[in-house]
């Protein structure tokens, strides 16, 4: 089935729009769904997030946009959540699911957030290497700034510190 809006890409998402109290059902590709969602934000209840996720997950897990029914049943070894359950509820079963469901997850996150790399807070006690990685990111910013300001002595110091940290990472 093709997307009702662009008639080009395959439909993955059921989109319900409420205009003047009448419900309008559409089947959309994820691109059009995202655009419609942005456009219609004036009229608040729009896209069902779970349908949206279901579309994305199915798409990425199978690599096949059309056949969502003949999915191979992948499930999380830790919590037992199946792919179908995740797609239906829009929720992962446990924190292990993120690695268990593998390849599909990164593109999914990218689609939702425009990024798949965390740059924020790292837990101090259990953050491990992420703490160092974060510090390196911050220092790299400072290095650029120092170079821009032509503070080369400072830049050299920052560069040394980055080298130290990068060694710790290995």
């Amino acid at each position, binding site marked *: 089935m093709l997307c009702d809006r662009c008639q080009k890409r395959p439909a993955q998402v059921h989109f319900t729009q409420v205009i003047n109290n009448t419900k309008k059902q559409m089947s959309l590709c994820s691109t059009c769904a995202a655009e419609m969602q*942005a456009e219609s934000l004036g009229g608040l209840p729009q896209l069902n997030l779970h349908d949206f996720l279901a579309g994305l997950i199915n798409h990425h897990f199978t690599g096949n946009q059309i056949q969502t029914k003949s999915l191979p049943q992948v499930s999380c070894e830790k919590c037992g959540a199946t792919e179908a359950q995740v797609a239906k509820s829009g929720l992962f079963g446990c924190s292990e699911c993120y690695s268990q469901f593998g390849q599909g997850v990164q593109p999914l996150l990218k689609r939702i957030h425009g990024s798949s790399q965390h740059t924020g807070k790292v837990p101090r006690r259990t953050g491990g290497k992420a703490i160092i990685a974060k510090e390196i990111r911050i220092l790299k910013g400072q290095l650029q700034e120092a170079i821009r300001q032509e503070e080369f002595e400072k830049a050299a110091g920052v560069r040394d510190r980055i080298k130290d940290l990068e060694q710790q990472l290995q």
Partner: protein
Amino acid sequence: MSLRETVSNPYSKWLDASGPESDVIISSRVRIARNLVGYPFPHLLGYDNADKILYAVQSAIESAAIKEIVGQLELSRMTELSPTERQILVEKHLISPDMLEQPEKRGVVLSADEVIDIMINEEDHLRIQCLLPGLQLKECWDLANKVDDGMEQILDFAFAEDMGYLTSCPTNVGTGLRASVMLHLPALVMTQQINSILTTLSKLGLTVRGLYGEGTQATGNLFQVSNQVTLGLTEDEIIDNLIMVAKQLVTQERTARLALYKEQQYPIEDRVWRAYGLLKYARSITSTDTMNLLSDMRLGVDLNIIPNIPRGLIMELIVMTRPAFLNKLKGEDLNPAQRDIFRATLIREKLNSLS
């Protein structure tokens, strides 16, 4: 203040209308989602495991780390509260309506001033929230961050180096941070600028929804604006973005108010005084009417049309006149018609006590 008092007192710190930009921004909220390693997320959590998480949080808030960093916190299981009391926590925005289902699995941690609030076993194991009046997003984040620091010394949070904090819904992963402001935008609604503003905000990656109301018909002209993206930005970036947008909305709303008042002085004054009159003398009034009239009255207060009404009182009336709170105040379950009468009585008493 104990939880008992929380559910019997309509006043919350976030209502006191004393914060910065409080003529437009009612309150600021920051919520961070955290999950414990080794347990399924709440929607797959059995009773035993739900219980273990409640115990783990209990021991964390009793720890020296939390007491030192944050102070005294109190955990209540949902089952310790009556259904009316649970509903009141929802009406005060301290817990989400989802917390009312399967109360056996859920609990809430509150600080005495109701500024810190942790929902346990909602969509994630912990949802640490801070709620302050006016535009105080930075202050909210600092506080939530501190609570998280303290909790983290005791609890092992699920975290991946690349994806950040792991949450039940992938829309929260990364920072797990949802920051929001509640705004009162009557002039932008009246001048019909609101829809184009909402569209613009959505393009900036922000979510807008009406508070209490459904869809675009935001009851009482109250809107909540929050960040959508939680991954790929730092917490400070998310907070700063939202502050920038909130300040812009404050400017636009103030400009619209002044222009509106200048161009249509009598219609506006009439509208404000009619609202005041209805609220002060009505004998029966619905919840939706109340919200809309309180919004008009508040606009009158902000434009100095009506003197001597504290903004805090208006916010207190909004919470106090919600259905569950009325039942609690009356001490019995009222039917809708009885509630409308009791609501009108209560508002009359409050407004008459001022003059």
